[in-house]
């Protein structure tokens, strides 16, 4: 403890506070100096020479960089590269549609009971539509066609259902 009643730790804390204050003042001065340089004004604050030199170099470079702008050629080049990259990442319109379909169907894939139910409904509708052997033939349907035609179309419907479920369960 000195004659003024201050301990060594008090003095240390005071020195630290003074140093922090001095650094804050330096930072404020450098910021003001930089603002003046960038705005083309005569600086009214003093800063160390090496900092002043560095600020001037950066300011000169930044001024040149801002003055150049972006050429139409560069815009076009970037657009082309972005288009190609976007297709890679997000796919074409067709693959986006497939992706959405897959997403919608994935819910069914996670719940097998619903998937089976949907498949049964599709199958039942197909069977009801297809199997009417006594009626006169209707073009484009299995109505009135022979047994082999009905079997082929039922197999086809089941294949489509299996394909859809397969697509839905793909990760």
């Amino acid at each position: 403890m000195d004659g003024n009643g201050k301990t060594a730790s008090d003095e240390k804390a005071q020195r630290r506070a003074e140093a922090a204050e001095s650094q804050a003042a330096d930072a404020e001065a450098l910021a003001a100096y930089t603002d003046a340089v960038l705005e083309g004004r005569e600086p009214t604050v003093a800063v160390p020479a090496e900092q002043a030199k560095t600020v001037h170099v950066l300011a000169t470079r930044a001024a040149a960089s801002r003055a150049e702008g972006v050429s139409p050629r560069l815009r076009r080049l970037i657009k082309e590269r972005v288009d190609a990259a976007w297709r890679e990442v997000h796919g074409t319109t067709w693959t986006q549609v497939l992706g959405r379909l897959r997403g919608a169907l994935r819910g069914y894939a996670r719940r097998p009971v619903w998937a089976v139910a949907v498949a049964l409904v599709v199958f039942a509708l197909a069977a009801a539509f297809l199997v009417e052997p006594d009626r006169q033939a209707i073009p484009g349907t299995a109505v009135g066609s022979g047994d082999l035609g009905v079997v082929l179309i039922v197999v086809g419907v089941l294949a489509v259902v299996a394909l859809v479920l397969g697509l839905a369960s793909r990760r």
Partner: protein
Amino acid sequence: MSELTELCDETLAARAKNGDRAAFDILCDRYLPIVCRRLRVLLPVSAVEDVAQEVFVAVVRSIKSYREDAQFRTWVAAIIRHKVADYYRSEQRSPQTVELDPAIHSPSAGSEAWRDQTVALMALQQLKAEYQEVILLRFAEGLPFKGVAESLGVSLEAAKSRYRRAIQALAEALGVEQPDSVVGA
């Protein structure tokens, strides 16, 4: 489209992440000048166009990893930093291997050459990322210190203090003599 232009960067980025190309195009329009200005400070002029393209391709490829709670500007700045580092690596330069030409090591030996040294040193990551960022925000993007502070998410005093340390670090990295003299008023 006009409705989209009013959205903030982060909202547009979130939309782009989900495949909204119109939102991404608006982000591209907003950031193309910013990216070019930053690159012109960090790179030789001849490299700016190529690296700018690489930056935007990287943005597209990484957009799905963008987190909405992050500032888009900061996220893009990190991509720029990586691409600039890649450029110097591909040129087989690194902070360890680049030798300063003694003839141009001193700022008094010609400002053009000295500026090139600044460019090389900054881009070669001699400066910490946080120092590089504060300098680029003020000089390349032209933000006032208040804007710099907001962008960094710190107080105005903290931003100015970081800026002072950054300028001092750059001056030291460049080997500028530290005379006792002061410049200014």
